[in-house]
């Protein structure tokens, strides 16, 4: 493909094309930014608790075992809809309690089972993490994940 092309032509195509595609990419992410803020996520309910919950999620490096919206490690279950799985969408109180009870029971220590560490979260952190999961579960993810939640 390069036989009939001069080096200068190749250079111009490279620089021109790169700028062209980069500008389109930036424009589309700018649009996506607005789409996220206005449509796919609920910014009005993104309160301090959710923000703190995200920090709890990060501080304990949950992403290096679990995935969230399919990204992360694949050693432990996907948690994008964990709030729904624990019944939080129907009864938030039940969801919070179930999540806390689950985490407090870790690690099980059962031989041959994957072990989730004990993170010793405070009451506040449990509540914040639950708020984060609740908020995340309501992100419009274009219908992902495909698995039935029940």
């Amino acid at each position, binding site marked *: 493909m390069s036989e009939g092309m001069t080096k200068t032509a190749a250079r111009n195509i490279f620089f021109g094309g790169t700028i062209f595609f980069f500008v389109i990419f930036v424009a589309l992410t700018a649009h996506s930014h607005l789409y*996220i803020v206005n449509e796919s996520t609920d910014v009005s309910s993104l309160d301090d608790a959710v923000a703190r919950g995200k920090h709890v999620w990060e501080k304990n490096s949950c992403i290096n075992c679990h995935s969230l919206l*399919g990204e992360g490690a*694949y050693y432990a279950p996907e948690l994008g809809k964990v709030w729904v799985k624990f019944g939080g969408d129907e009864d938030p109180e039940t969801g919070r309690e179930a999540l806390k009870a689950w985490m407090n029971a870790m690690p099980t220590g059962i031989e041959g089972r994957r072990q989730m560490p004990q993170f010793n979260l405070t009451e506040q952190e449990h509540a914040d993490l639950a708020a984060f999961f609740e908020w995340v579960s309501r992100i419009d993810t274009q219908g992902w994940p495909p698995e039935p939640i029940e």
Partner: protein
Amino acid sequence: MKYQTQKLAYPYFMAAMGLFVVQVLGGLTVGTIYVFPNFLSELVPFNIVRMIHTNALIVWLLMGFFGATYYLLPEETETEIYSPKLAWIQFWLFLFGALAAVVGYLFHIHEGREFLEQPLWIKVAIVVVALMFLFNISMTLMKGKRTVVATILTMGLWGLALFFLFAFYNPANLALDKMYWWYVVHLWVEGVWELILASILAFLLIKMTGVDREIIEKWLYVIVGLALFSGLLGTGHHYYWIGTPGYWQWIGTVFSSLEVFPFLAMVIFSFYIVRQSTRNHPNKAAILWVLGCTVLSFFGAGVWGFLHTLAPINYYTHGTQITASHGHLAFFGAYVMINLAIITYAMPHLRGQQPYNQTLNMWSFWIMTSGMCFMTFTLTAAGVLQTHLQRVLGMDFMEVQEQIALFYWLRLGSGLIVILGVLLFVYSILSKGKAEQATA
């Protein structure tokens, strides 16, 4: 070796090899935890070991890129590196930051976004290191000859530093966080790193084949052009299911499918150029790594990427072992192998010897490569099964993991083979050995 300052590459390559060993030992540990889940579970849990595995990889690849730059830039620009002293300060600061990060992880000192777990002060140190480095190489480039190889390499390194700045932006909105997180991760490995990869490749081919620079540099433009034209909008394949608009499914599908082509072009180019050789270069092992790099990155990044990049397929495979299989072979084929190629090429020069231990080095190539391929096949099989059982039939995650346990055993076995290859490689470049003469 014509220029004194090319020696600056040596400490970088040595540190890269040290961290390479840390990385694969981390991988071995993670692979072991997959089959013996209670192993280290109280002491150093999975998430910590995985952080060490991925971070050590990234840091040693960067060490290798820095070393490669210090090695090839004087020859390309025909001038010494602007400030050797700055290069040394940069080296120690970077090494200290890397080791501090790894030790810190063991004591649970880390942040929590995947691959960007470094504490804030280490992120700042990385930026300082990058600025020192960019200043140094840009000054070198300005006072010397601006060849295409040197220019593309410098562009890639500038891009690397610029996109890293998005690591400092961590909004509370998870969808936004994820969208900009890919500005670092995707625009690194499927963007500016490809510029670095292609220019190192071009340098090695110019040196070892004696083919006219004009031809190779024209190819270089074509390859990096293809890489960025497909790779920039190819970022869309990460924007399918994270709260971003639906149109990314079309854009991502089309453009990331095209990401196969720069890798295909690299294979054709490198084999074509090597066949045109006017020189019988004694370092056959380095040529083997160069050719291996293009082939394995074509399969790992290109083919294995294409395997799950179409949106309707990715809907089912997203976040399964398929992703892991692709990640392993892509990183190995593209960025590990280009580093091992330049290290194999440069080490004899840096240590003032004839290319030595060629046979051993080539053995390490075949052992490491077969280990990595087998690892990829086992993870692919695991991923296909996982996708079907979990995403199509709707089985529970942990139940599925029990169903695919056999593949994790096979993966662990392949990991052991890789480690054998890695140790052989390190030994082959560091030991004295018999100074093997160039064969006619």
